[in-house]
């Protein structure tokens, strides 16, 4: 029963108008009076010793204000990592420093050697090119397996080796070995989850500013979580207390994870602005983004499933190498561990599950969270493996999954998490309908008549969203709290401002969050304004990632609004001379049950600020409340996805014919926005499955370093998607009953696509069990013709 513009309404987005008219305010649109420009000189070799950085001639070039090198940052903190993983022996992970500008060594293509600040961007770039650098080349470590060999060159000389950690999680050895020793069948698969480049369409930008009169620094940055940047940069890098540091993330053109992290360029611009007493602006080019934005995925895995004679899953064991790149970014160590290992049970009641992950340093651009972060990797392994098992056993892939679904909740997995609620048969039922599985055989015949091979691929995913109970994260090595905060400020005339620590960079919070508050108060959403993205306006925030904005940030707003209602009822009770317990709020009107007494929302808000007739002895004037919400568990969205492909047997080209997604996100605030989130995730997942690949050669050169070489999905690579989220089991532990929808599409789609391609090839008599992503024409053709 969607109220007008309330919870459940597909309200058009209010932020659209500014974006559709060119009135958005992205970081690069900001120009400060007297600003100077930054160009970084970046390493063009993957590994080397810095012998000399001679800035003399460059410094004398026109417009150059100052050139900074690593020496200027001696004594300044390095870029911190926000998560410490403890290895299988109880030892902390190896954690190398990441200087703002290179000191002594460069460790990946794009590593920062020097930074020129000049009057114009062209002058800065010209001078950066004129810096004379001598680098003694060192052998580059690129391949993870080679990086772990005992005589491998070390990425960091001060570490023991290139192993960040060796982590084991889940069931103990005895349980796992017991399961495999009594298995009737074991299916094994080795696969690669290739490295990806997040590529939000807006490249990163940082502008530092400094006010000497107040000793205050300001950073404008393309960030998903400005408060976290303030904390990390202020406390760990530059030593600026929070009250002297403001971080603003205005309109941000997409994030997908890669704008979570605190980057050296942000620290540099803030530092340089203070050193030079001038605003300092850096805008990444796309080419620079390819070698300086943290990248995603990059796992190599062996996974084994043990089944009993009745096809029940009885054991699951994985062994993964996870690439960290050259340095540890903000949450990098958590991605292959707590965001990956904990989801390895999937939607299935496998009694023994054990996950082993070894994280490895290499001379490549650092890797961290990218949409889904760990969960796409877990889902991909498991769901590719189950398909293979079904084929080996001659079982129907859907029936095999259904047979092993978790059906009773709450369910505690062998990998530590507790699913609060779900209905995996329910989402599968929806999927079977919207994907028209019954009609597949006919469609396959039609394709065959046209000389094409048609395949059907299925996938069931589960994810853990809404990072996270702070006490749990603390136990697992997280170095921050993971609550969210909100302040609701009601103005005298009844309009209100909601300040949230969540950040919107495409998710539509300015529309959906007010829907929640409007619904609770029974007022029109246009009376509510959302403020986000500025540490000077919002008390505290942990930001947007892990599909957490609504389930954690929205819950904080819910709690703050509850406090507002409680206080407003006290005021209303006073105005109506009634008992507080009898006051009801409905449709923006306070009334006393069983009487005709009522006062309007606006009367109460006015009384709060003009307290002439007001219970001053009981409550303070004003109407503003803050809440911090710390969830008691993760949320567990889940769903079933299906993909149909046609493969051209002559060329190996794969075409997506249809894609269907049945999700359970719990309650839905704005179904239009939810659909859009799923569409976008599926688009990225299809990109990973068919097109995208971040490739380094053996010397650590990045071969896919522009949109010419890195294949982004385009409009004609994808179909319309059939999306359905009618199967809803509300989350049991947050007040909105919501689960989060931002990452589902990217998690759920790659296995469905690859399963469909393998199914197509099998239907043509090709005994192909696996093709690594991206499933390019060359790979498909090779698989068909070698098998």
């Amino acid at each position, binding site marked *: 029963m969607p109220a007008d513009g309330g919870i459940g309404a597909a309200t058009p987005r209010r932020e659209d108008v500014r974006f559709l008219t060119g009135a958005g305010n992205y970081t690069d649109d900001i120009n400060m009076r007297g600003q100077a420009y930054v160009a970084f000189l970046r390493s063009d070799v993957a590994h080397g010793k810095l012998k000399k950085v001679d800035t003399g001639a460059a410094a004398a070039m026109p417009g150059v204000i100052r050139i900074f090198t690593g020496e200027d940052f001696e004594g300044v903190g390095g870029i911190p990592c926000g998560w410490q993983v403890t290895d299988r022996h109880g030892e902390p992970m190896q954690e190398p420093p990441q200087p703002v500008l290179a000191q002594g060594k460069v460790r990946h293509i794009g590593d920062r050697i020097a930074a020129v600040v000049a009057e114009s961007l062209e002058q800065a770039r010209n001078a950066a090119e004129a810096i004379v650098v001598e680098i003694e080349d060192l052998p580059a470590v690129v391949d993870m397996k080679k990086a772990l060999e005992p005589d491998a060159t070390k990425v960091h000389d001060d570490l023991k080796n290139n192993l960040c950690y060796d982590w084991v999680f889940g069931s103990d050895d005895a349980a796992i070995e017991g399961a495999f020793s009594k298995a009737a069948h074991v299916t094994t698969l080795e696969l690669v989850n290739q490295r990806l480049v997040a590529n939000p*369409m807006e490249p990163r930008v940082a502008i530092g500013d400094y006010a000497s009169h107040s000793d205050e620094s300001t950073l404008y940055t393309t960030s998903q979580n400005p408060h976290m940047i303030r904390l990390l940069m202020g406390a760990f890098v530059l030593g600026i207390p929070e009250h002297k540091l403001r971080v603003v993330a205005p309109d941000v053109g997409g994030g997908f994870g890669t704008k979570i992290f605190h980057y050296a360029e942000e620290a540099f611009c803030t530092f340089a602005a203070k050193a030079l007493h001038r605003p300092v602006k850096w805008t990444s080019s796309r080419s620079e983004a390819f070698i300086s934005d943290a990248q995603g995925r990059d796992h190599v895995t062996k996974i084994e499933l043990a089944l009993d004679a009745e096809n029940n899953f009885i054991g699951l064991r994985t062994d993964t190498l996870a690439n960290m790149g050259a340095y540890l970014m903000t949450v990098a160590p958590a991605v292959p561990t707590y965001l990956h290992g904990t989801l390895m049970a999937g939607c299935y009641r496998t009694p023994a599950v054990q996950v082993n992950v070894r994280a490895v340093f290499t001379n490549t651009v650092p890797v961290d969270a990218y949409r889904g972060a760990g969960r796409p990797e877990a889902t991909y392994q498991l769901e590719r493996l189950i398909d293979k098992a079904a084929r080996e056993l001659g079982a129907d892939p859907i029936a095999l999954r259904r047979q092993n679904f978790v059906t009773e909740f709450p369910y505690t997995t062998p990998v530590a998490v507790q699913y609060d609620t779900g209905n995996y048969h329910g989402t599968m039922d929806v999927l079977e309908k919207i994907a028209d599985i019954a009609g597949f055989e006919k469609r396959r015949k039609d394709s065959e008549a046209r000389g094409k091979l048609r395949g059907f691929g299925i996938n069931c995913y589960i994810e853990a969203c809404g990072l996270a109970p702070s006490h749990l994260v603390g136990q697992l090595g997280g170095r921050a709290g993971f609550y969210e905060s909100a302040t609701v400020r009601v103005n005298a005339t009844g309009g209100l401002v909601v300040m949230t620590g969540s950040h919107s960079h495409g998710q539509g919070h300015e529309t959906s969050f007010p829907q929640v508050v409007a619904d609770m108060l029974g007022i029109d959403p246009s009376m509510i304004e959302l403020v986000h993205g500025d540490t000077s306006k919002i008390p505290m925030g942990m930001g947007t990632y892990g599909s957490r904005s609504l389930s954690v940030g929205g819950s904080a707003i819910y709690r703050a609004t509850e406090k507002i209602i409680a206080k407003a009822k006290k005021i209303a009770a006073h105005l109506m001379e009634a008992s507080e317990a009898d006051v009801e709020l409905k449709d923006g009107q306070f009334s006393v049950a069983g009487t005709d007494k009522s006062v309007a929302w606006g009367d109460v808000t006015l009384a709060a600020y003009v307290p002439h007739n007001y219970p001053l002895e009981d409550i303070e004037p004003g109407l503003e409340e803050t809440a911090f919400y710390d969830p008691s568990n993760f949320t567990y969205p889940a769903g079933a996805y299906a993909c149909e492909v046609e493969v051209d047997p002559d060329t190996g080209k794969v075409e997506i014919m249809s894609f269907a997604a049945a999700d359970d996100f719990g309650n839905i605030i704005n179904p239009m926005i939810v*659909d859009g989130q799923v569409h976008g995730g599926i688009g990225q997942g299809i990109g990973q499955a068919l097109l995208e690949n971040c490739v380094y050669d053996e010397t650590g050169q990045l071969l896919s370093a*522009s949109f010419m070489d890195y294949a982004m999905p385009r409009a004609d690579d994808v179909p319309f998607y059939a999306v359905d989220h009618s199967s809803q089991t509300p989350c049991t532990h947050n007040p909105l009953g919501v689960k989060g929808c931002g990452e589902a599409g990217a998690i759920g789609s790659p296995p469905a696509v690859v399963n469909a391609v393998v199914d197509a090839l099998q239907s043509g008599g090709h005994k192909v069990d696996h093709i690594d992503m991206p499933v390019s024409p060359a790979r498909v053709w090779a698989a068909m013709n070698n098998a």
Partner: protein
Amino acid sequence: MPQVSMTVNGKPASGEVEGRTLLSTFLRETLGMTGTHVGCDTSQCGACVVHVNGDAVKSCTMFALEAEGADVATIEGQAAADGTLNAIQAAFQEHHGLQCGFCTPGMVMSAAALLKENPKPSEAEVRKYLSGNLCRCTGYHNIVKAIMAASGQDVGAIAAE
């Protein structure tokens, strides 16, 4: 430095540029019209699409001096003077054809050029025409749908809105 003059959204505009100054840079930096976006440096993303003498052009792929005397239209000039969105802009809002909004100016300008030359494009024609416009947020579903709706076609049957 040479001077360049053109008409932008119906108003005269001029400024000093270097020979290498791109039209996108001139619009954003010299004129302060930041609605036109720059998402790449290899002419691939289409965030910078504007119209030059009625044709859709990637403004990062043209020197400002090449637009001397030209009639340039940008995203800032698409809505009516009172702020009313044009049919394409309105369809993008109605059908949720944008998320972060970064690709949006280029998408809207490309869509306008498409509908001028092909007033009722099929789904396949829309998708093909947009191959020079990247969007990382929407999976293209609602962009294609919005453009078809803006062309007056019934999009009610297209899966999930």
